[in-house]
């Protein structure tokens, strides 16, 4: 199976859930979506996720950012996957579940590309729960 499989390229070319996010100051005190940015220090790629909640369910997840096909496709697929789910579901997501979602072989040099979106979502959750943010090594482990 090729890294640049059709489903990956389809998500890369037509990303789902990708839209400009509200700047911090316009999001109102604590009422706006949870918003969090993570970047991949190896290449400077960056993803910001915004998660809106309704009764503990994710009513909307949108994101924006720059990056390679793998990071963009992974975030696109992840945003589809998480729609309607609970915050707990984010908590239960693992590196392996994300790689299974992608369904293509991810070698070590592209692992952080694949996990950038997951890392951003996980830390959005940490931020919401007011617990310390996860390090990259925890996400990659």
């Amino acid at each position: 199976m090729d890294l640049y499989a059709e489903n990956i390229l389809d998500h890369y070319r037509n990303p789902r859930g990708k839209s400009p996010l509200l700047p911090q100051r316009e999001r109102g005190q604590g009422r706006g979506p949870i918003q969090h940015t993570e970047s991949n220090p190896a290449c400077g790629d960056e993803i910001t996720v915004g998660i809106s909640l309704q009764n503990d369910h994710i009513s909307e997840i949108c994101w924006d950012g720059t990056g390679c096909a793998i990071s963009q496709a992974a975030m696109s697929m992840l945003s589809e996957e998480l729609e309607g789910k609970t915050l707990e579901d984010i908590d239960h997501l693992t590196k392996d579940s994300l790689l299974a979602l992608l369904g293509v072989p991810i070698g070590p040099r592209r692992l952080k590309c694949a996990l950038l979106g997951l890392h951003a979502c996980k830390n959005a959750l940490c931020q919401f729960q007011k617990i310390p943010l996860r390090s990259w090594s925890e996400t990659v482990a």
Partner: protein
Amino acid sequence: MSLPIAKIRQAFPILRRLIDGHPLAYLDNAATTQKPDGVLDAMNAYYRTQNANAHRGMHPLAEEATDAYEGARGVVQKFLHACHSEEIIFTKSCTEAINLAAKSWGRTNLHPGDRVILTILEHHSNIIPWIQLKEERGIELQWVDIDDDGNLRFDRLERFLHEGNAKLVAITGQSNVLGMQPPLQEIIGRSHAAGARVLVDAAQLVAHHPIDVQKLDCDFLAFSGHKLYGPTGIGVLYGKREFLEHMPPMLGGGGMVQNVTEESFIPLDPPARFEAGTPPIAEAVGLAAAIDWLSQFSWEDIIHHEQQLLVHAGVVLSSIPNLTILGRFPLQPTPYNLPPRTGCLSFTLDNLHPHDLTEILGREGICLRAGHHCAEPLHRRLGFAASTRLSIALYNTPEEINRLPAAIERAREILTGKTADSARAHGRVANYKLQTTH
């Protein structure tokens, strides 16, 4: 005379490697060069026949290892045209060499309000040590910008120098992104006239241009062995003896002291003062072998071959629709009649991410570098998050570069689902035929 490229390639075993059946086109030489047999053999022979610790023992092997290590210092001294061998300090890398200058000379000689002038072309290793010093010592940093063609704004440098309090100009000898060479001789002259010292980051320059530290009159110069056909794990800081003599050691340990009591120590003279701990002996031997190997060719031939290659690369890449070369290209003469671009050039393609492009090119054995190449401020200045870099060495050929257009088109098609023709419809039209020398 032209270089015997086929014979040169024979000396590099790795160039015979196939990647998935494709011959290697190694065009990532600014990251690290490949190593010729001469270097591998010299290091192997050292370990097989002479290995011992240097400067530590009276037995025959210890003496041979010491000779090998100090002999390597002599080779570097001659290569840089340094006045004294004590002016050559071995470090683990160019990065460590610059850090040594910052943490030893900088900490001793720079005070709050003093200014260090950098250029926007710098590699992170010639930025961060100075930012650290700014945080630690309250020095000020001033950044010399480039013009839109990628050339250094000499007028800005002069203005900074005239403003006073400039104590150091820390400048690259050759950009690792744009390949442009700032006019060092001129810069050093003006800086000295304004009372500033000059440190040259020669990491990229060293393999592409002769260096004469006495003629340049630079105060410090740093490079890494691994970008000069030598091994990793060894770098060099050249410093004028008059400065080194008054600099404190950065690291403390064995091999750098005259005597030690429970309370204090008296350090040795340079260079030993700056080489605490067991040094990279085999690596020094390898570096000397690399210099010996390179010295069989004339700089004139090397520069000629590499200029032709880089111009060829520029022309070939310019023929690809929607490909943008950073800085001005085709090659234009720059002020001061210096070679316009040397060693590397970087580009962007559509809005494709360099990681995807280089991943796909890599499958065909074409090795290019993707990212910001440890020059984030420069990329921000140029308005790109990242780029793809092609960088050459004297073993590269036009034929390797000629593989790029078709391979790049295949990558574009995979990633965008569009062919060059549809891309061309949006971009500029190219009617360029591949140019083959030889």
